[in-house]
């Protein structure tokens, strides 16, 4: 049970922090269609986070609900990968982050939707559909920017380079027995998706080098503290209040 609790936290925290970053685009997107689409992605991610965290809280049985888990844990208690903490940067960086994360999430959720654990499988089945849209949205934009103007090509290329070291952590050994999968097994299919999109975008896959690690054990980037401060401040300033 502890392993499953921890695993649900990881899934929920990935989605929660990704939602927080995606939502930062509000009123800042390059055009209205992107305002709508990014809000949509953020809402999906937030919905996934709520489902995973609520389930984690029930499983724990200590009375922690989604809000207690989201707003009252300290930095080192979060189990998300560092990838989702990266600042949004320009639109290309956000597209790169979304592509590389959602291609992984889509494969993961699809596999988890066949897990023996029914509640986990149920949440994952819904999330799998949502993340398929995220992959498709980010793929379209990767291609548009990669195969757009010289400037957008350069920015898209730099963005993929910048985010790449943070993708290795997605495939580190980390899973509950109930999940019935080894994350490393997702890497091959993930590379297929990513290579296809990058190829169409006239971009090369970056070379593997330094790899970020530690998020699943609660070690995060320097960007994560300020993100949590912003996210948790109002909740913590009114302990015990209902909203």
């Amino acid at each position: 049970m502890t392993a499953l609790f921890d695993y649900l936290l990881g899934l929920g925290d990935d989605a929660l922090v990704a939602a927080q970053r995606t939502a930062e685009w509000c009123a800042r997107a390059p055009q209205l269609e992107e305002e709508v689409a990014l809000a949509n992605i953020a809402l999906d991610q937030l919905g996934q986070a709520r489902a995973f965290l609520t389930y984690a809280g029930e499983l724990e049985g200590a009375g922690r609900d989604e809000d207690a888990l989201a707003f009252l844990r300290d930095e080192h208690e979060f189990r998300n990968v560092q990838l989702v903490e990266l600042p949004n940067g320009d639109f290309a960086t956000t597209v790169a982050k979304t592509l590389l994360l959602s291609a992984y999430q889509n494969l993961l959720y699809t596999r988890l939707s066949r897990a023996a654990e029914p509640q986990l499988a149920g949440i994952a089945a819904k999330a799998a559909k949502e993340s398929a849209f995220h992959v498709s949205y980010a793929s379209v934009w990767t291609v548009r920017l990669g195969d757009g103007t010289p400037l957008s090509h350069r920015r898209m290329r730099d963005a993929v380079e910048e985010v790449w070291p943070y993708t290795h952590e997605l495939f580190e050994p980390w899973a509950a027995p109930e999940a019935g999968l080894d994350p490393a097994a997702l890497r091959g299919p993930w590379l297929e998706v990513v290579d296809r999109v990058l190829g169409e975008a006239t971009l090369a896959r970056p070379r593997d080098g330094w790899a970020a690690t530690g998020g699943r054990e609660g070690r995060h980037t320097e960007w994560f503290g300020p993100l949590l401060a912003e996210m948790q401040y109002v909740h913590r300033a009114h302990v015990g209040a209902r909203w």
Partner: protein
Amino acid sequence: MADLQEHFDRTIERDQRVEPRDWMPDGYRKTMIRQIAQHAHSEIIGMQPEGAWITRAPSLRRKAILLAKVQDEAGHGLYLYCAAETLGADRTELTEMLIEGRQKYSSIFNYPTLTYADVGVIGWLVDGAAICNQVPLCRSSYGPYARAMIRICKEESFHQRQGYELLMTMMKRGTEAQRAMVRDAVDRWWWPSLMMFGPPDDASPNTARSMAWKIKRHTNDELRQRFVDMTVPQAEALGVTLPDPELRWNPERGHHDFGAIDWSELQRVISGNGPCNAERMAVRRAAHEDGAWVREAAAAHARKASAVSRQEVVV
């Protein structure tokens, strides 16, 4: 020409809708474009004051509700720009008119949102006032606008209920600090909400023509009164006092009387001197400018893609 004018007049008279393909007088077209564009701009600028609270929302449920609301506003902006385009306007040009300050947006968004209670009060009062303004526009004579308004009004009343529900939670199940936040927010937003209906009728030069064209169905003062009458009992249910000592039921009129509005304040804020005018415009301008390379890339890619598909047709 006389025929066309007569057909247009008859369409208006019979409460039928003018459609994009129909002939319409230049003044009608211009008035419609301006009104729709200003409405679209207001939706877009209106994302900012509330949107700033998404990352700080105090519960995940409230975060989701707010995110969905702000997304709706972007969607509203999108339909409305499309409606303006059916009249021959161009979205890029309209955006530039906004950014250069040549077209207005609703002045209400030049006030700051200072606490999470503001999110609730904006839903209750600002969306409430918007709905009073907009419900009659669902019968506007211009078809695409009227149809956009039907969808928008439906979503707005959903937002209004959610705002009111947040305030109810804060007032009835909240802490004293939360109640104080609600009272403070109501104090700050009440008068600006009343100003959302525009200047009093005797100082509103365009009202008569807009009503003749059935672009508008009620005068500013009629709508304002309707809003006050609707809101007073809601305030009572919430347990907040509206900041107007002259506010009271007048059984003779069958309406609430209320105090004098500070029109000089409205004028000042409209003319650019509100607390947040500069900030709102700066954020909008930065988003537009920072996004230029993305829009250009999309256009360049579309040209390449269509060149390829033309080539494929030729081959």
